[in-house]
C-alpha cells in the first residue's frame, strides 16, 4: 500500500516538480532538502527532553531545566523557526500553498531518520486542526504531511485517530499558562486505533509545547505505548532573547564549519 503511495509521490514530483529547498530556498534537483541544509540538520543541538534548539555545549533548554515535564519520550525538530522556512510554513498554513506538504514531509523524513534512527513506530499522527479551521483552509496541512511521511517510512497513518473536539483560540497571542488552560480537553484519541501503539506525532512548530503535550496526554490516556514528537521547526520565545542570540552564534559557527 505504502509502496503505491511512494510511487505516486514520485509521479507527482515528475509532473509537478518542486525543486526549491524549503529551508533556504536554493534550487536543486529533486524535492526536499538541499545538501547544505541536510548537513545542518545533524548539527543542530537539541534539548534532551524537548525539540527546542539550544546553544552548543548546553544540554537542557530553559523550560526543561526549570522542571517542566514533557509526556512524550523524546522530541526532535529540524530548524529554527525563522527566515524562509518561517515564510514557507506560514504560506503552507494560511496562504493556500498546500503543495509545500511534499518538501516538508521529506524534511521530516530526514529528521526522523537522523534523530530517531532506532525507534520503532507503528503509527504517524498529525496534530489535528478543528473543523472550523479545516473548513476555512480547505485542507488539514499536517495530515497532508503525515500521509507522505507515513508512506515514506512505510508506516500507517490515520486522520481520525486523534481529533480536536473543541475549537480553541489562536495560541500565538497567549502566554504559557493561558495556553495550557485553553487546551484542556481539546483533544481526544480513539483508543481502538492507538491502543498499544508506538506513535510518531508530528507538528509544524514547537513553541511552548502546550499543543504537543495536550495531544500526547490524550494519546497516552487512550492507551498508546509510547509517543515521540517530530516538528519541522522550533520557535524561540520572546523571553528567551538571550538564548536566541546564542543560537544565532551557533548557526554562524556551523556555517563557518560548513565552509
Amino acid at each position, binding site marked *: 500500500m505504502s509502496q503505491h503511495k511512494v510511487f505516486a509521490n514520485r509521479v*507527482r514530483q515528475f*509532473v*509537478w*516538480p518542486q525543486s526549491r529547498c524549503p529551508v533556504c530556498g536554493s*534550487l536543486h534537483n529533486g524535492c526536499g532538502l538541499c545538501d547544505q541544509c541536510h548537513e545542518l540538520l545533524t548539527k543542530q543541538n537539541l534539548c534532551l527532553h524537548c525539540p527546542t534548539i539550544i546553544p552548543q555545549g548546553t544540554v537542557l533548554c530553559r523550560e526543561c531545566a526549570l522542571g517542566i515535564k514533557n509526556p512524550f519520550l523524546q522530541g526532535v525538530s529540524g530548524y529554527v523557526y525563522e527566515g524562509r522556512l518561517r515564510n514557507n510554513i506560514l504560506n503552507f498554513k494560511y496562504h493556500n500553498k*498546500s*503543495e509545500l506538504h511534499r518538501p516538508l514531509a521529506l524534511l521530516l523524513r530526514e529528521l526522523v531518520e537522523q534523530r530517531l534512527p532506532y525507534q520503532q513506530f507503528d503509527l504517524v499522527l498529525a496534530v489535528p486542526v478543528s473543523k472550523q479551521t479545516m473548513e476555512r*483552509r*480547505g*485542507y488539514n496541512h499536517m495530515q497532508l504531511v503525515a500521509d507522505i511521511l507515513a508512506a515514506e517510512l512505510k508506516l500507517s497513518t490515520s486522520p481520525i485517530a486523534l481529533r480536536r473536539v473543541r475549537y480553541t483560540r489562536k495560541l500565538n497571542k497567549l502566554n504559557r499558562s493561558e495556553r495550557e488552560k485553553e487546551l484542556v480537553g481539546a483533544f481526544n484519541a480513539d483508543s481502538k486505533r492507538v491502543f498499544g501503539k508506538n506513535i510518531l506525532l508530528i507538528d509544524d512548530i514547537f513553541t511552548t509545547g502546550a499543543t504537543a503535550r495536550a495531544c500526547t496526554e490524550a494519546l497516552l490516556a487512550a492507551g498508546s505505548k509510547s509517543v515521540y514528537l517530530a516538528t519541522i521547526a522550533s520557535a524561540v520565545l520572546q523571553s528567551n532573547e538571550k538564548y536566541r542570540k546564542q543560537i544565532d552564534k551557533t548557526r554562524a559557527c556551523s556555517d563557518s564549519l560548513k565552509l
Partner: protein
Amino acid sequence: MKLGQEAKQILFKMRAAARRQPFCLLAAVFILGLFLAQALWLPACLCIIIGGACLLLLEYAYKKSSLALAMFCLLILGVIWMASGITEPKAFIAGDGQEVKLCGTALENSQAANEDTGAFRFKIEKMNDLYYRGPDVIVYYRDNKIYYGDKLIVFGTVWRGDKYGNPGSFDYLRSLQVSGIGGTVSTCYGDDALIKVGIGGNPLLYAVGKIRAKLNTAIDDLPDLQSAVLKGVFLGEKGELSKNQREILANAGVLSVFAVSGLHITIVLMAALLLTGVSYRYRFWRLLVGMFFVVFYLLLVGNSPSVLRAALMAAFVLLAPCFNEKANFYSSIAFAAFVLLVYQPLQLFQAGFLLSFGAAFGLVYLNNFFLRLLPLRLPFKHLWSVSLAAGLTVMPLVAYYFYKLSFVGFLLMPFINILAGGVVVLAMFSALLLTLSLPLYSFCIAADGLLCELLYRISAWGAQLPFLHTTVAKPPLAVVFILICFLILLPYIAEFWSRRAKVFAVLLIPVCLLLPYGSNCGKLEVSFLDVGQGLCVYISTPGGADILYDGGGSFSGSDSIAEYVILPYLQCRGVRELDFIISSHPHIDHIGGLTALMPYIPVKKAVTSRSFCGNDLQQQFLHQAEAFNAQIIFAEAGEIIFKENNLTINVVCAPSLQHIKDEGLNENSLAVLISYGKQDFLLTGDLGSEQLADLTSLEAEVIQISHHGSADGFNKRFYNSQPLLAAVVPVGRKNTFGHPAKIVTDYFTDRDIALFRTDLDGALSFICNGKEIKVQSFSGRKEEFL
C-alpha cells in the same frame, strides 16, 4: 581554455534546469523524435537517433538515471510514432473534378470563406449512396444557412485544391489533411445543391451551434468593420475581413489576437472564476466551473490547435490544486503538446501549432530575461516584457512562414491585448445572456463593437508608422533553428553580460532575419513560376532590380493566382517592390495576375503596348496602374527598356498596328530579350509562328516556348536558327487545351535540347553569371549546369 570552462558551466546549469522539469524534457525529446523522423534525410536521421540513444543509454548505465532511460524510450517512441505512418492523414477517395452525391451531417456552422461563399466541415455517411468511412470534407456553397447538426444531401464537385510548385506557396490541402479533412467539395447546381433532410449530431454541440448562430446574427447588426473585427477576435473567423484589412493587421503584428488562443482562454477562465468566486478550498469545484466555461468557449469557437492547447493547459493548471500541487507552466505546456502531437504528429510542421506553442513557451521562458533588461522604472513593465518575450520567440517563425518582420507589434501588443481581453469578456458575457435569452445582450454587443473599432483603428495607426514592418526573404530552416536555439541559450549565456551586450544579442535576431537569403548576388535570375495555365516570369537582375513579365491569372477571373501564388513567391524572395512589370498582351492568363497584384505590392513602372488599348482587360490594367502610381510606358519594337552594366532588356517584338482586334492579341505579344554577357533569354509571351519567323536574327540560349507549347506558335525554322540550351513551356497540369503539343515536345526531344515544363518541374530558376547558366527546379527533378 577559459571559454571552454564557461561553456561547461553554462551546459551544467542548463542540464540542471532541464532536470528540474522532467516532464517538459520528455515532451521535448518526443518532439525531437517526431521531427527527426520526418524532417531529415534518412541516414542523417538514423545517425543522430542512434548517437543520441547511445548517449542516453550510457548515462543510464553510468549514473543509473531513470530519467535518461525514459528519455531514450520517448525518443524512440517519437521516431516510431511518426515513421510508422499510423497517423498519416488520409485523402478523400474521390478524384479531382469528380461529381459526387454526399449524405451526412454538418460539423460546424457555415462560416464566410470570402465575400459570397461560405464553408463548413461535413461528415460524410454515404457517398453516391454507398456507405463511406474516411476523412471529413469541407463543403463550399453559396447563399445557404447551415448549422451544426444539419443532416444534408450535397451535390458537388470534388476539388482537391490547386497545387502550385513554387517556393513560398502554401500547401492548403496538406494543412486541411493534417486537421483531419480529406478534401473540399464545392456545390455547383445552384439551389438544389444542398437539401436539408433532418437534424442530427450531438445535442450539446447542436445547442452551442444555435447559440453561435444567434450570436452571429446579433453581431451582423453592427457596422461592417466592427462585426468583422468582433468575429475575428472572439470567434476566430477571419473570413469577413478583407484581404487589405488582414494585411494591415499583419503589418501591425497584431494578427495573433485574431486567432483564438491562450490569451482568450485565460481571460475567459479568469472572468469565470472571478464571477463565480469559488475559492481555493473548493478546488474541485473550481476545476469544474472553470472547465465548464472553457469548454463552452471551445465549443463556441471550434477547435484550432491554439484553442486546444490553451484549453488543455487550463485543465492541467486547474487540476494541480486538486492534488495539493502547484500548477507548473512547463509541465502543462508539455502535456498539451503531448496530447496534440500523439493525436496528430504532423501538426508539428504547421504554422498555427508552432506559433501557438512558441509564443506561449517564449512568453514564460524569456519573461525574466526581459524584466531584468527593461529600464527599472518603466510603467507596465510586465506587459512590455511579456510582449517582447512572446514576440521575439515567434519572430523567426513568422519570418519563415509569413515572410514578415514587424516591430510595431512590440509597441502595440500591450494595449491590443488589454482591448482584446475586454472584447472577449464582453462577447462571452453577451453569449451567456443570449443563452439565457435575456434582452440586454444587444447593449453588450454594441459596446463590444466600439471596442473592436478602437482596436482596429489603433492597429491601422500602427501599421502606417514608417520603418517598423517589412517583408523579409524566407530564411533557411537552419537559420530559424539556430536562432531558436540561440533564444533558448540566451538567458544562460547572457547572465553576466552587460546590459548593452544583452541588447545587442536581442537585436541580432531581427538583423539575422533581414539578411537577403536566397538572393543570387551579382547574377541574373530568370524564374518561370508555376501559375497553372498561364505565364509568369520573375527576373532579378545582378544590380538588384525586380521585374515581372506577365502575371498569370485564372480563367475564372478570380484574383487567387496573384494573391496565393505570385505574392507569396515575391514575399518569400524578400521582394518589397517591383521596378518593372511587363505585360505581353491582355489575355486573362497573362495580365490577370498583374492587375490583381498591384494593390499588394508597389510597382514603379508598367510596360505595355499602345496597340492593346481597345481591350477591356488592358483598360483595367491601365486604371489599376494609374491608381497605384505606376508610371506607364508604351514600348515600341527595338526599344531598350532596361539597362545595367552588362545587361539589357530589349523589346524585340511589339505590335505594329494601331489597334488590334481581340482575336489577334496572342500573335502580337510583346516579346523581350534579356541579354547578359554572352547569354540571352527570350521571352515570347503567346507569339505566333509568323512573328517568330522575324526573330531568326536573335541568338537566344534559353527560350520560353510561345503560347504554352501550342502547335500554332511553333516555328521549326526559327527554333533551328537558335543556339538553344534549354526551352521552357509554361503550362498547366491537365489543361483542357492539350498543351504542349506533341510536335513541340518531339522537336526538342529529337534535337536533344532540355525541355522544362512548369507542370512537371514546378517553378524553374535559370541563374546566369554571364557565362554559364544553372537551372534549379522546385520539384528538385533537375538541377544542372547547361
